[in-house]
Every structure is written in C-alpha cells, then in structure tokens.
C-alpha cells in the first residue's frame, strides 16, 4: 500500500538534523538546524544540536536524538572531571580525542551520532568531525555532519573562503546551512549559529522556511 508511511531510513536519519563548522581568521563558526522529528513527522522547532563545552569550544551532535542527549551528558561529566583535576579548561584537540575514545569504546554497539567539534586552540581555529565509531577528521576549512551532509559538502566547497572575518564567516556559514537544509526533508525549522572569537561568542537564531 503506497500510503502506509513507515519509511526504511537509516537509524542516523530517524530524527534528522544537520550540523556544520567552519573556520575563519582567528574565529570559528558552528551552526545547526533546530528541527526535532520522528521520520516524516515534525514535533518541535527549538531543538538545538550544538552544545557549549566551554567559552572556546562547542560540540555539534546530529543523528539519533536519544544518543545525542546521552553522549552530551557523558561528555559534560568527563569535561567537568577534567576541569576539577586539571584546574584548566579542556582544549579542543584533547576534547576531540576524548570524544573519539568514548565512541570507540562502543565499537560494537555505537552511539548513532557523528559529532562535529569547533573551537579555538589558543587563537587558532580548530574544527574536527568524526564518524559514529570515533574516527576523527581534522580539516583546516570546514566539517559537516547530519542527514544533509552531501548537500552541505557541496555547498561549502563552493561558498567557502579562507580567513574570513567573524561577520563574513557568519554570512557564509548561514547561507551554506540554509540552502542545504532547504534540500532536505528532515532538517530545517530554524537554525542556530555560534561564532567563536578570542573575545567571546556571538549566538544568533535564524528564522528560516518552516517546512
């Protein structure tokens, strides 16, 4: 029956969602869509997928929502313990290694999320993405993840300019995310963009097509 809708989607596309991180001149941008849904049904438009770890480090977790929440709480615990022991904030490289180890610990029963990390290592931008079992990929331009990752890669390749100022980075990052979301049924319903600079973080919510 063509009208019974139980789609055979991969488990990573059950909730949908997209995250993107991009580097600029001494700044990093990280953005996500805000949709929460179950396959084709949309339930909320205020479900962010990017979390603050510290003032210079953000983590994006697209994929299965329950695993995203659990992983975020586990990492929050580990980061807090690190800060108590080391009496300093965790740096992006060390944090990426931490995430990678936790994911590989569950090699044969993984968390269905492919994280994206964006932060400042001193004043140098750092972006990293990994697959669901923790293989890290560090690039010097941008990383993407989520249900529209192919569209995101395509548009980032076209629109990315190295060493942009925070304002220009915001525009480029937003356009990449918005246009890729418009080609994906299970991402969208708003966007949140964070621009991290050495002086602070600017966060903006974008009003987008609500479909």
């Amino acid at each position, binding site marked *: 029956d*063509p*009208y019974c*809708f139980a*789609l*055979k*989607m991969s488990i990573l*596309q059950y909730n*949908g969602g997209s995250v993107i991180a991009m580097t600029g001149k001494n700044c990093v941008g990280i953005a996500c869509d805000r949709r929460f849904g179950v396959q*084709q049904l949309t339930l909320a438009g205020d479900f962010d997928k990017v979390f603050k770890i510290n003032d210079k480090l953000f983590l994006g977790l697209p994929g299965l929502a329950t695993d995203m929440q659990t992983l975020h709480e586990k990492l929050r615990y580990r980061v807090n313990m690190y800060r108590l022991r080391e009496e300093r904030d965790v740096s992006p490289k060390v944090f990426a290694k931490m995430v990678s180890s936790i994911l590989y610990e569950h090699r044969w029963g993984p968390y269905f999320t492919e994280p994206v990390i964006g932060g400042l290592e001193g004043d140098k931008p750092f972006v990293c993405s990994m697959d669901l079992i923790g293989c890290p990929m560090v690039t010097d331009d941008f990383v993407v993840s989520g*249900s*529209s990752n192919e*569209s995101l890669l395509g548009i980032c390749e076209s629109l990315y300019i190295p060493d942009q100022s925070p304002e220009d980075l915001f525009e480029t990052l937003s356009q990449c995310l918005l246009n890729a979301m*418009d*080609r*994906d*049924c*299970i991402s969208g319903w708003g966007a949140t963009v964070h621009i991290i600079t050495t002086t602070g973080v600017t966060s903006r919510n974008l009003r987008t097509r609500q*479909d």
Partner: protein
Amino acid sequence: FRMSRLDFFNQLNPADPLLQERTGHVADFTENALSIPMSVASTELLHEFDRADLPEYAKFEHGTTTLAFIFQGGVIVAVDSRASMGSYISSQTVKKVIEINEYLLGTMAGGAADCAFWERHLGEQCRLYELRNKERVSVAAASKMLANTLYQYKGMGLSMGTMVAGWDKSGPGLYYVDNDGTRLKGNLFSVGSGSTFAYGVLDSGYRYDLTE
C-alpha cells in the same frame, strides 16, 4: 525480443492481420498503446519497483499532501509542491494539480508520471465524449472513466491517489479515485502522506458556508 502492445482505448486483437503489418518506426507511433515485454510475466517484473532495498533514484515519490472539498462557492483544491526521493528534496515547484479540461481538475499523489499520464488520457476521453454527445461530460462519468481504466491495470504497479473535482449540470462534484480502482463520491477528501494531518485541520474547521 518481442514486445506486445497493451491497448488501453479499444481492446484490439493482437492476432489481427492489420496489426501484424505495422513494423519498424510506424509501429512506434501507434496511438493509445503501451508496450509490455512478452517473455516475462509482466506483473512480476513490475513488482521489482516495489522492493524496499532500491537505490534512492529508483523509488517513486510518495511524500505529498493534497486536499479538496465542496463548499457553497464550488469546489476548492489545495496541494503542496514538494517532490522528495527518500529524505532528499528533488523539487519545491511541482505542479500537483492537473487541468484535465477547463472545468475538471485532477490532483497528483503517488507516482507523478502515472498521475500526469492517465489524467491527460482522461482529458482526451472527456473531449471525445463532448464531440460524440454534444455536451460536457459529468464529473461522475469522468471519474468513472478514470477508475475503469485504472482497474484494467490493477496489480501492475501503478501508484495513484487522485481526486477528480469539477463542475457539471448537477453543480460541484468531487470524487476520489485510486490505483486499486476505488472510486468514492464525497464532500471532503485528503490524499497523500500528509493527509492525516490535513484531516485534523479540515475536520475541525470545515463548514459548508465558508466564504472564499
């Protein structure tokens, strides 16, 4: 490799000697005929397209919301315009309302090609009716022609959930027709994957005396 011709206008006899003469490119322009391969049972072959493990590009588009209802001002038809292949949006500007003729509209849900082709075919049938009977075809008759055509292809994998809406001598008319050959007369219908949501809104807000 022989192909037979499935004639959907008049039931032609394939053994007819006149048909045997049509060879080469002349046969390709034979009107009102669809080719099906003779070597394989055609329904089994066509069921290949219903398998769940197909690559994305081979899956037909089903994500749609269409609705229509009768009210004091006539019939109103509303459709979305998205086409999706799995989770990928292939187009945001699809025309899902098909103009069968100046007073009949059809909607598209299910396979886009199936709906577009057979509703165009219905338009041809309606025009021929007008020429033979010197009056416009009624919505009831038009929807019945479509339903009967689809019933002939029942089980062969056509995918259509369409509404035929229009105006005739007895006023506004609305029928739901689908690929199983179902034909239902009604005042309010919604078809497609989003139909459940549309029914929720319609059932709470519908009144016959809504203004335009």
